[in-house]
C-alpha cells in the first residue's frame, strides 16, 4: 500500500462483523487528507465502525486499514497514532465524566496525553475561551446542555492538537443554534490548522452539503464518493438528501415515496391533550418551566428542541409517569390520573430509547404486549399478523431486536405502541438516528394513523423536515416553550426562509447570556515545541497517565456520598453487629427435665444443672411424648430424662442410667452442650462422693491440663473480630471495584482507554488506587474499633498487620477488577463477586473452620484465595502475638495474589474494542 500523501486514511477490502451481521462488507476507500471528509448514510450502515477502525479503537477483523501513513494493524503505529488522532464517539458527552466539571474533564484528557501542569492550564484556558465555555469551568459535565456537552467533547478531542480529528455524529440531538456554532468552531480550528484532517459521520444532509468530500454508505458498502456537488450532478438532483436516495440500490429506492401530508379535514374542536402551566422540578433544577399547550383530536403535534430541553420530561408527565410539580395535564378532557387503567388503554407511548425486551423475539414482544393489553383471544392473532404485515416485520419476527437495525426496531416499537389501537400516541424522538428512507416510511405510517384513523399524535423530533410535516409545532428550549403554531406561521413570523432559521432566531432571542456564542478568537495558539513534546509517544508506564485515572476515579467516588458512606460506615456497622453477634460462646441453653423418679437424689442431680450458668431451665416435661415434641419445636436444646427408681438404684450402687437427649440439628451447639453436660455430671459425682466418703473420687486417673493458648479466656471476640476485619476488607472493596470497568463499558467512557495513549496497566492501577486508599482507611477504622470497643489488644506487631492489610486490600480490590474485566454486564459483576468472594471467604478462609481441618476441593479453593493468608496475619498479630518472622510467608502470598489478579485483569482487558 502506497502512502499517498493526499489521503489520510485508506481502507482495503475491510470486512467487519458483529455476530452474523456484517457492519462493513468488503469496503475499500481512500479518504483525502487536509479537508472535511464526511460519511453519510443511515444508521447501522457501518459509519461508526468505519470511523472506529480508522481511529484504531476497534480491532481490525479482515482487510487492511491505513491511517496517517501507517498500518493500523501494527501496534507500534497505533501507539504512535494515539497522540495524533482524536476520536469523539457517538452520543452526547459519551466519553465525558458527568460528575466532573468542565475543567476537570479537560484536565483529565490533558494528563492522558502527558502534558505538564503549566501546559495543561494554558491549553485548557485557550480551548475554553474559543468555545465560549470559559465562564463556567466548574459546571459538572452532566449538567450541560447537549450543545455544550458536544463543545466540551470537542475541546477534549483537541487538547493534544491532533492531525486527524474523527467525529462520530457530533451534532445529533443538538439544537440548531448549537449545531451552527459547532460547525463554525470547527471551521475556525481548521483555518488555524489547515493541515488537520477531519472525518465526520453525520445524519444531517444539510450539514454534509458544506463538506469537501463525502462517502455515501449503505448496508456496509460505500455506494459513492466525491464532493457534494459531484454527487448532486451525478444524480442530477439539487439536494444531497435527494441525491442520496438516488444513489441507493434500486430495490430500496423504489420503496421510497415522497411524503405528502393531506390536509386535516374537519375538527370537532375537542382536545385530546391539554397542558396548563406544567412544571417539573428536580431539586433546584427546573426541567420543565410553566409549559402550556392544547392538542386537538386527530392533530399531529410536533415538539421541537434539543436534547435535555425538557421534551422527554413533559411527555412523561403527560403519560402519568412523572408527577408534575405544578400545573395540570388533561387527557380527553379529564384530569390525568396515573392509576387510571382505562386512560392507559387509550394512550400509546414510545420512549426515546428502545424499551422493549431485548431477550424476547419480535413476535414474543408483540404477543406479550397483546396479552398485557388483553386483546381478546380471537382478535390477537389477526391483529399481530396485520401489524407484522403493515410494519414489514414479517421477515424478522423470530429475530431478537438487538440484531436489528435501529429503523426496524423503531417500527417494532411503533407497532407495539399502536397494538391496542390507542386514540393518542405519544412518541418521544422516534426517528432519532434512523436513516432518511426509514424515517419517511415511519412518517407514512404516522400520517395514515392520523388522517385515516383519527389518532392524535404528539411527537418530538429534532429534524426540521419532520417538524414541517406537523399540523402544529411547539419550539422548546431550556424547559420553556418559545413558540407554538403551524410551521409555516412560525417561519413567517420571523421572516425566516426556513423553519431551521426561524428556530435559530427564536433561540437567539431566548438566550440572553446564559450560553454565549463563541467569541471570534482563533483556537489553540499552537506552539510547535509543544507539539514536538506531545508527539513523543511511548508505551512505557507513565505515572502521570495513571494518576489521571486515579484522581478522576477518586473525584467521582468523593462525589457519590452514598457509595462513600457504604464504603466507610458499612464495615463499621457490620463489625459492631458481627463482633457481638458471631459467637461460639454457647450459653443459656434452654432445657427441661422429665423426672420420673422425683426422689431426693434425682433432685440433687438436677440442681447441678439448674445452677449452671450455661443452662436455662424451662417448664418440666410431664408426659412420655413431651421430650420429642418439645425438642422438635426447637424450644429445648436438650432434655434430661431421669428414670423411676433412679434414687434407689443409685444408693444401691447399681449404676443407674440417666438419659440426656440433645438436639443434634446444629452439631456445634450439640457438641458443646455435651461437653458441658459431662462436666456437670462429673461435678455431681465428685460432690456425691465427698458427701458419702468424705473424699472426692476422681473420674480420671490422669490429670489433664488444658491450656487454651492465645485466648486464655476462650472468648469468641478475640478470634472473631480479627476475622471480621479479614471478611469486611474483602467483600466491600471487591464489590466496589467489581462494577468499575463494566460500568465504563456500559456508559461508554471506556472509549478513552481505546483512543488515548493510556496503557491497560495505567488504566487498571489508576482505577484501583482510590479504592485501595478507601479500603485501607476502612481497615484502620476497623482496627480502632476492634481495639477500643471490643477491647481486643494487639499483642503482636502492628507493622506486620499494617503491611499485610495493604497487600490484602491490593489483592481484594484487584479481585474485583479482575471480575470486572471479563464480565459483560454490571448485574453479572455483582452476582459473580458476591458468590465467588463470599463462599470461599466465609467457609474456607479459617474464619469459621480452621484451615488445617479443610479437605478436598475446599482446601484448594481456600488456598487459591487471598482471604486465608490475611486471616493468619490478622489473627496472628492481634491474638497470637506474632510478627514478621512468623508471618512473612503470608505477606508473600498476598503480594503474589495482588500481582496475579492485576496481571490476569490486564490480560482480559482489551486496548481495542472488538
Amino acid at each position: 500500500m502506497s502512502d499517498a500523501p493526499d489521503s489520510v486514511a485508506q481502507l482495503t477490502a475491510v470486512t467487519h462483523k458483529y455476530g452474523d451481521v456484517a457492519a462493513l462488507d468488503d469496503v475499500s476507500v481512500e479518504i483525502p487528507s487536509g479537508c472535511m471528509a464526511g460519511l453519510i448514510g443511515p444508521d447501522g450502515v457501518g459509519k461508526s465502525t468505519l470511523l472506529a477502525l480508522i481511529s484504531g479503537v476497534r480491532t481490525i477483523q479482515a482487510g487492511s486499514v491505513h491511517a496517517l501513513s501507517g498500518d493500523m494493524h501494527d501496534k507500534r503505529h497505533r501507539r504512535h497514532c494515539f497522540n495524533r488522532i482524536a476520536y469523539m464517539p457517538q452520543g452526547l458527552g459519551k466519553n465525558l465524566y458527568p460528575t466532573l466539571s468542565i475543567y476537570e474533564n479537560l484536565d483529565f484528557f490533558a494528563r492522558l496525553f502527558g502534558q505538564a501542569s503549566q501546559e495543561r492550564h494554558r491549553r485548557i484556558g485557550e480551548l475554553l475561551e474559543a468555545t465560549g465555555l470559559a465562564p463556567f469551568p466548574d459546571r459538572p459535565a452532566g449538567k450541560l446542555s447537549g450543545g455544550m456537552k458536544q463543545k466540551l467533547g470537542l475541546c477534549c478531542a483537541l487538547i493534544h492538537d491532533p492531525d486527524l480529528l474523527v467525529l462520530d455524529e457530533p451534532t445529533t440531538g443538538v439544537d440548531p443554534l448549537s449545531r451552527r456554532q459547532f460547525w463554525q468552531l470547527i471551521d475556525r480550528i481548521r483555518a488555524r490548522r489547515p493541515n488537520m484532517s477531519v472525518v465526520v459521520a453525520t445524519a444531517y444532509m444539510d450539514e454534509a452539503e458544506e463538506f469537501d468530500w463525502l462517502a455515501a454508505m449503505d448496508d456496509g458498502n460505500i455506494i459513492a464518493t466525491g464532493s457534494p456537488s459531484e454527487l448532486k450532478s451525478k444524480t442530477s438532483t439539487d439536494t444531497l438528501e435527494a441525491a442520496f436516495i438516488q444513489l441507493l440500490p434500486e430495490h430500496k429506492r423504489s420503496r421510497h415515496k415522497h411524503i405528502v401530508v393531506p390536509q386535516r379535514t374537519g375538527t370537532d374542536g375537542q382536545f385530546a391533550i391539554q397542558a396548563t402551566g406544567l412544571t417539573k422540578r428536580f431539586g433546584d433544577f427546573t426541567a420543565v418551566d410553566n409549559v402550556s399547550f392544547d392538542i386537538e383530536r386527530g392533530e399531529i403535534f410536533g415538539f421541537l428542541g434539543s436534547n435535555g430541553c425538557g421534551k422527554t420530561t413533559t411527555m412523561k408527565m403527560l403519560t402519568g409517569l412523572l408527577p408534575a410539580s405544578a400545573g395540570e395535564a388533561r387527557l380527553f378532557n379529564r384530569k390525568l390520573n396515573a392509576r387510571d387503567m382505562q386512560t392507559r388503554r387509550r394512550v400509546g407511548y414510545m420512549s426515546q430509547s428502545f424499551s422493549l425486551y431485548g431477550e424476547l423475539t419480535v413476535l414474543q414482544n408483540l404477543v406479550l404486549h397483546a396479552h398485557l393489553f388483553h386483546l381478546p383471544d380471537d382478535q390477537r392473532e389477526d391483529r399481530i399478523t396485520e401489524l407484522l404485515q403493515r410494519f414489514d416485520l414479517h421477515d424478522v419476527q423470530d429475530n431478537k431486536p438487538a440484531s436489528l437495525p435501529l429503523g426496524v426496531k423503531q417500527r417494532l416499537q411503533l407497532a407495539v405502541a399502536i397494538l391496542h389501537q390507542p386514540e393518542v400516541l405519544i412518541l418521544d424522538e422516534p426517528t432519532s438516528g434512523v436513516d432518511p428512507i426509514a424515517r419517511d416510511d415511519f412518517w407514512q405510517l404516522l400520517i395514515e394513523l392520523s388522517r385515516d384513523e383519527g389518532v392524535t399524535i404528539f411527537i418530538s423530533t429534532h429534524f426540521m423536515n419532520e417538524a414541517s410535516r406537523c399540523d402544529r409545532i411547539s419550539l422548546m428550549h431550556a424547559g420553556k416553550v418559545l413558540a407554538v403554531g403551524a410551521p409555516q406561521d412560525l417561519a413567517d413570523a420571523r421572516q425566516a426562509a426556513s423553519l431551521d432559521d426561524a428556530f435559530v432566531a427564536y433561540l437567539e432571542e431566548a438566550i440572553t447570556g446564559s450560553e454565549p456564542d463563541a467569541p471570534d478568537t482563533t483556537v489553540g495558539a499552537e506552539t510547535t515545541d509543544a507539539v514536538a513534546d506531545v508527539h513523543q509517544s511511548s508505551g512505557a508506564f507513565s505515572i502521570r497517565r495513571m494518576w489521571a485515572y486515579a484522581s478522576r476515579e477518586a473525584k467521582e467516588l468523593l462525589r457519590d456520598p452514598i457509595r462513600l458512606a457504604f464504603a466507610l460506615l458499612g464495615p463499621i456497622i457490620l463489625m459492631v453487629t458481627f463482633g457481638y453477634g458471631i459467637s461460639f460462646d454457647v450459653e443459656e441453653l434452654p432445657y427441661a427435665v422429665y423426672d420420673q423418679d422425683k426422689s431426693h437424689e434425682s433432685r440433687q442431680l438436677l440442681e447441678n444443672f439448674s445452677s449452671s450458668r450455661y443452662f436455662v431451665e424451662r417448664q418440666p416435661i410431664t408426659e412420655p411424648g413431651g421430650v420429642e415434641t418439645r425438642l422438635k419445636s426447637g424450644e429445648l436444646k436438650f432434655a434430661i430424662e431421669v428414670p423411676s427408681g433412679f434414687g434407689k438404684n443409685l444408693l444401691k450402687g447399681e449404676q443407674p442410667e440417666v438419659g440426656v437427649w440433645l438436639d443434634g440439628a446444629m452439631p456445634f451447639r450439640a457438641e458443646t452442650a455435651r461437653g458441658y453436660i459431662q462436666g456437670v455430671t462429673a461435678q455431681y459425682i465428685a460432690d456425691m462422693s465427698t458427701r458419702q466418703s468424705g473424699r472426692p473420687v476422681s473420674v480420671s486417673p490422669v490429670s489433664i491440663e488444658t491450656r487454651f493458648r492465645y485466648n486464655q479466656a476462650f472468648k469468641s471476640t478475640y478470634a472473631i473480630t480479627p476475622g471480621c476485619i479479614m471478611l469486611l476488607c474483602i467483600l466491600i472493596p471487591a464489590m466496589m471495584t467489581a462494577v468499575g470497568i463494566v460500568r465504563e463499558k456500559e456508559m461508554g467512557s471506556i472509549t478513552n482507554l481505546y483512543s488515548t495513549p493510556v496503557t491497560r496497566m495505567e488504566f487498571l492501577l489508576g482505577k484501583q488506587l482510590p479504592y485501595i486508599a478507601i479500603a485501607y482507611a476502612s481497615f484502620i477504622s476497623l482496627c480502632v474499633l476492634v481495639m477500643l470497643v471490643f477491647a481486643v489488644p494487639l499483642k503482636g506487631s502492628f507493622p506486620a498487620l499494617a503491611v499485610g492489610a495493604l497487600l490484602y486490600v491490593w489483592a481484594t480490590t484487584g479481585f474485583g477488577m479482575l471480575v470486572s474485566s471479563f464480565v459483560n454486564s454490571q448485574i453479572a459483576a455483582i452476582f459473580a463477586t458476591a458468590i465467588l468472594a463470599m463462599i470461599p471467604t466465609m467457609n474456607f478462609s479459617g474464619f469459621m473452620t480452621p484451615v488445617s481441618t479443610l479437605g478436598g476441593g475446599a482446601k484448594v479453593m481456600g488456598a487459591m484465595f487471598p482471604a486465608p493468608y490475611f486471616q493468619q496475619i490478622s489473627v496472628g498479630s492481634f491474638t497470637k502475638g506474632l510478627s514478621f518472622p512468623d508471618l512473612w510467608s503470608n505477606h508473600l502470598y498476598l503480594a503474589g495474589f495482588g500481582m496475579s489478579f492485576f496481571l490476569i485483569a490486564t490480560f482480559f482487558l482489551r486496548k481495542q474494542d472488538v
Partner: protein
Amino acid sequence: MLQRTANIFRLGVKELRSVLADPVLAILLVWTFTFAIYEVAQNAKMEISNASVAIVDEDRSELSRRIQDAFLPPYFKPAVEISGSEIDRSMDTGKFIFVIDIPPGFEADLLSGRKPEIQVNIDATAMSVAGTGASYIQTIITSETLDFLNARGSATQLPLDVVVRASFNPNLNSTWFMAVMQIVNNVTVLAMILTGAALIREREHGTIEHLLVMPVTSAQIMIAKVWANGFIIVVAAGLSLTFVVQGLLQVPIAGSKALFIAGAVIYLFSITSLGILLATMARSMPQFGLLAIPVFVVMELLSGGTTPMESMPDWLQTIMQASPSTHYVSFSQAVLYRGAWIDIVWPQMLTMAAIGCVFFAVSLFRFRKAIVNFS
C-alpha cells in the same frame, strides 16, 4: 381478576426468559447449587472432623503410643509426632490446633498411682473446634488410660451412667447441617440479587417505564418478579436438596420435603420482596451491590445458621427477629432434621409471610416513584 392473573403470569414468563438468556447467571446459579454446596458441606465442617493434632512424646511408653494411635479419622487426622521445641512455631502458623505433651515417666507414674499430668495445648483462636476438641481429647486420653489400667485390673466404676444421645442427627455430623444451611444461605443471596438487579436492569434499560404506561399496575409487575425469580430459586433449591444433599451427600431428610418447599416459597416471597425494596432504594447498580452486601451478610451470619442464636446478646436477637432468614433457619432445622410437621412450624411460616408482606407493601409504596425518579 382474571386479567390481573393473566398479566402477572405473562410478565413472569418474560422474567424467566430473561434469566435463562444470560449465560453467566445460569452458570453461576448451577455452580452455587451444586459444587459450592457440596464443597462447603463436605469439607468445611463445624464439628471435630479432620482436626490436626500433634504429640510431643517424651515418655515413649506403651501408653503414650496407645494415646497417639487413638486419634482416629474422621474426627482427627493421624497424630503427628513433633519435638518440644516445635510446639510454638507449629501452633503460631496454625499447622496444628491441638498439641499434646506427654511428660517423661508418664506411664510409670500412672502405674504407681500418682495421677500424672498431661498437657493439652489448644489454639483457642480456632473457636469452632477448640472447645469441643478439648473435651474429645480429654475423653480419648481418659478412656485410653482406663483401658490400659483395666488390662492390668485396676479400674474404678462410676456411681451413675449419664448417657448423652443426640436426637435427629445421632453422630452430630455437620455435613448435614452445613449442607442444609448452605442451601438456605444461597437461596438468600441469589434471590435477593437476582430480583433486585433484574429490576435495576429494567430501569436502566427503560423497559419498566414502558410497562408503567400500559394497563399494568406496579403490584402486578412486582408480583410477577416475585413469582418468577422465586420459582427459579425454588426449583434450583429443590433439585439441589434432592440430588446434591440427599443423593450425593447422603444426608437423610427427616421431615417432609413438600413442607420444606412450601416454607421455601414463603421465604422466597419475603426475600424477593426485600430484593425489590433494596432496588427501589439504590440509584444505580454499584449502589445496589454495596447495599445488598451488608444485608445478606448479616442475614446469613446472624440467622442462627452459622453460630447459635442463644449466643447473641438479647438486643441483637430481638433485631434479628425482623429478618426472615432467622425464621427460615429455624423452620428448616425443624423440618429437615427434626421431622417437624406444620403443627409445629406454623409460627415461623406465619412470621415469614408477615415480614414478606411488610417488605412488599413498602416496596409497592416506593415503586413508582423510585422507577421514574431514578431513571
